């Protein structure tokens, strides 16, 4: 008798779960980088569960394809990604083996299918290459893809994620819209505050390690005039470093931006030889302590730059 009751209960639970309406189902969303995961969680609210592929501490061009990420993409309803080929080292390879018909790999768009949410849609892309040649280094054919370090582009990212979630799960469109409004209200308030912080930086000259801060330059007004790398993805040569020192002295460059994933030795050497100060920023959230959200990452980066040049907010 007890066995029968147990069996009946299990069956009832099974049928109850199976009979759940599709709209009650939680969407499995996979974000390529932590800040996209953060914004997807904010916009998706209770209707989504979010996994992230990169940990945030890596170089986004060199994220490791761990096989444990494959089942996540296999079960995913959506993948949220930066696009512009910035995830080319891991996303197409993982999608290729994930066997998810809604998320198919594509040479040009990285991802094609109903579940693909490209956050770069509608972006005013900077540094579009005039010609495509590897003699220019590891350039991205569609333009500079590092817009996630521009605090203002959080608005575009959030809107694209909301549009994607509404497309995939129209039953909860009203909730996604409400969550988006709430998130944008918070972000816009921060943006207004941050714009006041960075006002003194306008026109300041700086160099970075990699060519990934052009969008940050657009927000802050900082004029990035060079990189420690010889070309994108190509390690510096002694001649290049000597020329960079000369350029920095000539232009009175007070700031060196080192992205967390790069070796500190070279920027420190450059600082010693030019008198410039080094600011360490994260190019993904979770790259540095207490930067687990897009807002925290953006705020940290701005504070690091302001502190380096002695203009604390």
């Amino acid at each position, binding site marked *: 008798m007890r066995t029968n009751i147990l069996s009946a209960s299990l069956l009832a639970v099974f049928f109850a779960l199976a009979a759940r309406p599709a709209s009650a189902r939680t969407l499995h969303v996979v974000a390529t980088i932590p800040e996209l995961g953060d914004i997807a969680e904010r916009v998706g609210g209770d209707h989504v569960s979010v996994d992230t592929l990169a*940990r945030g*501490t*890596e*170089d986004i061009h*060199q*994220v*490791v*394809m*761990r*096989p*444990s990420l*494959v*089942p996540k993409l*296999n*079960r995913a309803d959506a993948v949220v990604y930066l696009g512009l080929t910035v995830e*080319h*080292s*891991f996303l*197409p*390879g*993982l999608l*290729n*083996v*994930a*066997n998810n*018909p809604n998320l*198919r790999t594509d*040479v040009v768009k990285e991802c094609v299918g109903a579940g693909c949410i490209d956050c770069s849609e509608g972006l005013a892309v900077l540094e579009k290459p005039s010609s495509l040649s*590897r003699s220019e*280094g*590891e350039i991205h054919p569609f333009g500079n893809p590092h817009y996630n370090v521009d605090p203002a582009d959080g608005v575009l990212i959030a809107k694209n994620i909301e549009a994607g979630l509404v497309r995939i799960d129209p039953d909860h469109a009203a909730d996604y819209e409400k969550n988006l409004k709430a998130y944008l209200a918070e972000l816009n308030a921060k943006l207004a505050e941050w714009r006041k912080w960075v006002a003194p930086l306008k026109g300041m000259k700086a160099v970075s390690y990699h060519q990934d801060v052009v969008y940050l330059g657009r927000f802050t007004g900082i004029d990035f005039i060079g990189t420690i790398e010889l070309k994108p*993805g*190509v*390690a510096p040569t002694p001649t290049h470093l000597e020329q960079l020192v000369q350029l920095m002295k000539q232009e009175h460059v007070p700031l060196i931006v080192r992205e*967390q*994933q790069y*070796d500190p030795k070279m920027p420190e050497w450059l600082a010693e030889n030019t008198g410039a100060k080094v600011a360490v920023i994260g190019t993904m959230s979770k790259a540095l302590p207490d930067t687990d959200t897009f807002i925290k990452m953006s705020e940290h980066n701005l504070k690091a730059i302001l502190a380096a040049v002695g203009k604390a907010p």
Partner: protein
Amino acid sequence: MNRTNRFGPLALALALTAAPVLAQEQQAPAQDTQTLLNDLEQRVSKLEGAPAKAALNSFNPAIGMALDTAFRDDNDKASFLFRAAELNIEAPVDPFLKAWGVITGSNSGVDVEEAALETTSLPYNLTVRGGRLFANYGRLAHFHDHELPVIDRPRSLDTYIGGETQADGLEVQWLVPAPFYLNATAGMYDKMGANNARQNNQGARPLDSFTYLGRLNTYADLTDSQNVELGVDTAWTPKRKVNDTAGANGATTGIVTQNDTWRTLTGVDMTYRYQPPSGGLYRGVIWGTEVMQNDERRFDPTTSLPSPRRPSYAGFSYVEIKSGLQLRGGVMADLTEDQDIRGKLTSTYTGFLTYDVSEFQRLRLTYAEAITNVAGAPRDHVVGLQWTGVIGHHVHGFRDR
């Protein structure tokens, strides 16, 4: 008439004439804005209605080429080696299929290394691959030569598999729907191994003369920075014909036997990776090990006379340390038992240092010493400097990561 009265009509006349002018001035910006909007609307419509910009060659496949050259000193005799120019072509065929080809030219001629079709949207997590492909056996066996961590393919793989796992046939992979990574492969091929002389790719054969493959591989994150990948596989050939081309008396040609000619090549592989959270691909340690057992009845290469069935073993283990963006190095030990002579072992020890000039250019220096445990056998030492470059399209494949 006072002054006010005198100028009153004049002021009124001026006001009346000026009013339309002012109104015109106020309307002018509005009209300009409207004109501008109309103009913009027309231009946007044209852009939206215009066909997508595409060249006639837009549907051409993505093309890349890996160039692999080396300077090699083998027992104090040196030479330059044109190892390979490997042309890679890849494109989707339709919404359900993709295809790729790898054509390699080297000192030994031109060869189609791979020419394969792969499904992209089968249900139940299935993927079917067919044509000439690198069978999914082991860990390093299906790597192209220039993608290996050392210059020369480990002797164990070269001897037991016969070069890369090139195979003409069909392979089915199933990604097990589990919360962890578990992948199963089943394959059927004419033979496995580009230089495997036991079978060939020509002619029809009964079903029991094909080679059948089964492989399972899984993966686990041990900690945030450590993970391990395990694989187990076997390639089984139920039967093969052994032609007595030389014959015991040097004249006979015919089938010696088909009995008890089955062969299994069973392997286990393990890859441990330490990848510190802040290093990405640049820093860390890889420890890879692969062991194979070959079980077959061997035939004397000159007389084709059979010898009793017996297993033989081979394998390698290597450690590679990545110290940064550009530099990595390590050591590899390979132990290969002769498949014909029990207990005859060749040990090869290799040290390698790789300098990645950029993502697309690499220099590699290796020193390898091989010792065979036979009295009087000379030591074999090889120094190699490899220079590799990739042009055009490149991909970061999951299988060869």
